[in-house]
């Protein structure tokens, strides 16, 4: 069998020569794409839902056993009789990637877990159809993505560096502090290409350092343990002691207080401000179960749905429902940083991510 290897290497060459001949002919595969049906904006003529569960594309930690997914679905199914199927693809960055790559062709009805930083990219894709659910009026203007309801906010929080106070005695006070020698090989971050906290942190460094953000990343390098692909991996590494600082949320300490009765993990507050993250859900224009999808959105913003979120997703609810007691441990940032719309535009975002990636060299 082994002598065959050389033979198919020759055949590889044959293939190449064939390729060289056929390459300029090109583009056939692309132009022969799937037929795109003009979507009918008139909702009155909408077809009834096709049978099957409402399919929701989301991130891993949302559907994990301690995440909001299972409880939310149970309550929703009880209230409406409709069933739900989650498709999880990693962290929020990967959710957007999946949506952009195959959203319109798949049987996904709702995408859940995209945030305000990704929103301009989502909007320009034109894949979502606006819907304002019941209780829309109870969402504060400050966390709305747009006035049309292209994406519906369901919870929000502030990115923060969470530290293990049994290891870190002196909390970092700024992004610059993170580059300090005492934090060498202690910080766990997430990949901005695949994770929404990762992207949020990247925007944080851009907001604080402006054009000097890439230099900051260079200074930060010595402090990094790893850049994980998603928040769940990174936070898991942190709690199991692989690092004593992790990118997470100001609300993360509430989890440990609520479920583990410990105040060991704390969120560091930076005077330079924190990036706000609003998480939202949207209905795909290509969905064939829009009625069911809208009922899910209604439920997500209902008091019953909202009450589930703080203690499962460990984020502030989007509506004005009362907070659980453990949230009192979550510090409120003094300043909120908001990246400009221009900075978040698809083109700028692409360039930013490319520049960041180029800087990540071993």
């Amino acid at each position, binding site marked *: 069998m082994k002598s065959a290897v050389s033979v198919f290497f020759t055949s590889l060459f044959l293939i190449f020569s064939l390729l060289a001949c056929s390459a300029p002919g090109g583009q056939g595969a692309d132009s022969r794409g799937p037929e795109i049906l003009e979507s009918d904006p008139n909702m009155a003529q909408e077809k009834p839902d096709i049978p099957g569960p409402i399919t929701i594309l989301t991130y891993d*930690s949302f559907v994990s056993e301690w995440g909001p997914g299972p409880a939310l679905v149970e309550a929703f199914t009880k209230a409406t009789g409709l069933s739900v199927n989650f498709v999880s693809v990693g962290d929020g960055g990967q959710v957007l990637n999946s949506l952009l790559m195959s959203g319109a062709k798949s049987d996904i009805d709702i995408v859940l877990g995209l945030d305000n930083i990704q929103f301009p990219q989502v909007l320009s894709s034109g894949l979502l159809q606006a819907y304002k659910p019941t209780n829309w009026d109870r969402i504060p203007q400050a966390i709305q993505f747009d006035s049309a309801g292209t994406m519906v906010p369901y919870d929000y929080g502030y990115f923060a560096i969470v530290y293990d106070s049994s290891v870190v005695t002196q909390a970092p006070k700024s992004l610059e502090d993170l580059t300090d020698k005492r934090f060498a090989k202690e910080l766990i971050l997430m990949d901005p290409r695949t994770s929404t906290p990762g992207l949020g942190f990247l925007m944080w460094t851009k907001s604080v350092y402006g054009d000097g953000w890439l230099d900051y990343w260079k200074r930060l390098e010595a402090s990094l343990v*790893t850049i994980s692909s998603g928040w769940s991996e990174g936070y898991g590494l942190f709690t199991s002691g692989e690092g004593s600082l992790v990118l997470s949320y100001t609300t993360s300490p509430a989890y440990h207080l609520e479920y583990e009765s410990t105040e060991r993990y704390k969120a560091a507050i930076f005077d330079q401000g924190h990036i706000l993250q609003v998480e939202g859900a949207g209905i795909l224009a290509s969905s064939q179960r829009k009625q069911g999808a809208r009922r899910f959105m209604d439920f997500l913003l209902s008091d019953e749905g909202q009450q589930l979120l703080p203690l499962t997703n460990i984020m502030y609810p989007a509506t004005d429902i009362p907070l659980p007691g453990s949230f009192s441990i979550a510090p409120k940032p003094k300043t909120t940083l908001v990246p400009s719309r221009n900075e978040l535009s698809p083109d700028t975002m692409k360039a930013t991510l490319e520049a960041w990636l180029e800087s990540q060299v071993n």
Partner: protein
Amino acid sequence: MLVCGFAMVPALIISYQGLSYIPQVLGSTRLIGVLGFTMAQAGISAFIAGAIGLPIAWLLAKTPLPGKRGILAISGIPFVMPPILVVLGFVAFYGRSGWLQSLFSFDGTILFTSTAVIMAHVFYNIPVFVRLVGRAWLELDRGPEAAARTLGMGPWKVFLTIDLPRLAPVIWSAAALVFLYCFTSFSLVLVLGGGPRVSTVEVEIFSLARQPGGMGLASSLALIDMLVAGCVLLVSEHLARSNPNKLGNGQFPGLLHGVPWWAYVLLGSLAIFYLGPLLSVLGLAFTHREGYLGDISLSLTSFIKAFSPSGIRAMVNSVLLASCSSFLAIVLGLQAAYLLKPGNVVGWRWLLRGIFSFPMLLSPLVLGLGFILLSQVLGLGQSWLLLILLHGVLSLPFVLGILGPAVATIPPGLVAAARTLGAPPLVVWCTVDLPLLLPRILGALAFAMALSMGEMNAVLIFAPHNVETLPLVLYRAMGSYQFSLGGVYGVLLMVFTFLAFWVTERRVAYP
């Protein structure tokens, strides 16, 4: 033939899509760096694995080391051991909160560095050296050595002047194989590398393929991957053929040295190096931790959790996928073996062999990428059927490697005699060929099943959203830091792997 087309067509599509992006790859300092690192780590890993594997091979060939057969037998396990299992073991054993650092209470970062990647590759590939070189060494003709020893030559000199020149082709071809394994290894680097700083070509292909607009660049990296694989296989093939290895019986008791003291040091440290991570997986499976912080206690909770509906679905999926794809591989492998039988289709044999071995050029991940592109071109979804086909294609070269020699040695006289006596072809095959081939078929089946069972890369990149397999749920459990749960899936995979390996090893000694 048709199915082998399924290996070639994806390769064609990848080449077609990737060719125009080659300048972009060459223009990116980062990707050039990644390519350089991939080469460098593969080279270093192969060198270290060789430096440790070679003395062990010497011990096996030249000393009356107890348990030689056992060592040689278990050295075949890495061929079927799922990399994700090694990853889990490494994290559990070498992690900052892992067993090693808690036992010896030192604090250092091993994981998420290039060191961790190289360590895992060495772990994986020492046995490959031991197996390939050790076997050749055992079979080396001892005549020249006997002569040299009579003339008073010491073991070092025998090694340098008599054995090394004869073994060099085997050593180089083993090194080439190990280099290729390390060059195309994926899940080890994905988890142990820790993000974009320690990245290899395969990891880049994966992350590019999952980003909008990244397919072209991913394809061009896959093309480079195939080219490197082709070159390395060509070199290894050339070396293996030029091997003038004369078979001896290797049984010259008078020539054996005593077991040197360093043998025990070496084998002892290797035992820790190997058993540590593997036992850690067992440890994970049988312990339980409450929440992120709770105490660790012995329990079977994780086993109960592992047999949740979704866990069971993953197991069923894995078994189904492994059964269907290995059955497919056997059917095709048998046909291929008959086609390639000496005396059959003389002129075209070289082409046929090339086609049937073609999948070896494609790493599972690259083949997965090719299948994605293929299903896009054909307008198909990412279906189960394609996934089965994918795994079948992946194990075909190995199945053919096991069945080929057996089919070639079926005595033509027997078949002819049966025919003369009037038996129809199918009856002839069932009564003459099948009994002769059966042990090898079973061996190949077990091997193919083990390959498919542990294969994660192709499934990860290609599989439809809702397909979960055993290695995949293990990977996801690790991702969400449910290490005990991961341990259970790891144990299941381990049991299955050992079982399949045992069957293969009993039926055929391969590779």
